[in-house]
């Protein structure tokens, strides 16, 4: 056959070869079909390990009691027993190494998540003692009067109206 027939064929072969080489270089070796089959399991396997290594911020709720047993006893005998320490004291990270102390959330916003009264009888929310945040000492922090570790009775209740 004449040269003018072969020439475009060479170009096509070069393009195909180029695509195959680029693909081999760009696609990771562990990219393939795994446990969930082609439809759901076609992926880069090492990504699973990358997600597994994602840093944990909140430690298991039981871990706090290992070093703070007296605080644990205190909260466990209060109506707030079911609230995990880290919900108010912030995520543990690598405490006590880093950070050495946790930043406690004493904000009003944290308390009214549950204690802003909502008249929903069918839910547990309707049974939680609640206030209207707009009228119940709106400028004050709840912890001025209520001790979160033993909210009942309000031992710390002081006159803050003045």
């Amino acid at each position, binding site marked *: 056959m004449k040269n003018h027939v072969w020439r475009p064929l060479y170009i096509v072969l070069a393009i195909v070869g180029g695509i195959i080489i680029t693909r081999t270089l760009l696609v990771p070796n562990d990219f393939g079909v795994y*446990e*969930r089959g082609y439809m759901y399991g076609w992926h880069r396997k090492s990504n699973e390990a990358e997600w597994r290594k994602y840093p*944990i911020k*909140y430690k298991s709720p039981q871990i706090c009691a290992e070093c703070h047993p007296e605080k644990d006893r205190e909260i466990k005998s209060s109506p707030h027993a*079911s609230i995990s320490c*880290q*919900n108010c004291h912030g995520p543990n990270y690598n405490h006590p190494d880093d950070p050495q102390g946790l930043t406690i959330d004493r904000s009003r916003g944290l308390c009214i*998540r549950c204690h802003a009264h*909502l008249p929903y009888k069918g839910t547990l929310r309707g049974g939680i003692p609640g206030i209207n945040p707009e009228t119940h000492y709106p400028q004050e922090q709840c912890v001025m009067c209520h001790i979160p570790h033993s909210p009942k009775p309000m031992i710390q209740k002081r006159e803050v109206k003045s």
Partner: protein
Amino acid sequence: MMNRREFCKKACIVAGGLIIPLSALEVFNPRRLLAEKDGNSKVRWVFLVDIHKCVGCGLCVKACKIENDVDWDANVTRTWVERYVVTKGGQTLIDSPKGARDGFITQKIDQASQGLKEVKPEEIAKAFFVPKLCNHCENPPCVQVCPVGATYQTQEGVVLVDRTWCIGCGYCVMGCPYGVRYFHPTLHVAEKCTLCYHRLCQGMKSACVDACPFGARRVGNIRDPEDPVTKIITTEQVNVLKEEFGTKPQCFYLGSSMEVK
């Protein structure tokens, strides 16, 4: 030189060969098919939400955002809580301000363009809170539509996104019937709940499960018959969301109501 008869014969053979897909030539292997059907993994994570127990405090959303580095102020969240208020007039009002990141602290229901709507307590027929998250479906449509294999399901049933491989086309965001996917505000890749895969793999529970003070959220292994979550799912009246889509969602709801979409 080829005659006409010869040419027609060969053309038929070539055309016939072309219409047989490659998969038809694959040897049928019943064992492999069985493995793909039920999976051979000893672990299959499922989620259980008890609507009766949820008070709408949003501590789960807060914990999820911190644990998974989800942008605090951007209007995106991997899990959220919806409030349903059904009036005696039969109207259903639903809202989820900031995904309930700060909980529900007012009786005013956010109705977007219609403004805040307050329902008098005596007009409320029923009200409840519904936590939502990725259902980690057995047939995840979001995974099927990914053109590059950036999203996938692990053998434990967790649907994940490969952040280095995602091209940000958004097919999966559109493909999910539950709207659990969104774009990462800074990385510009698809984002979703991982069921705290990094915690589950270390024997811990998901951050939202640990944060919930009322036990409204639980995670368990459906392949373990002794798992308390499995016991509830197999013996009590549980529901799933949008069953009609055929996605086989693996997030089960106790105490669900017909208003829940």
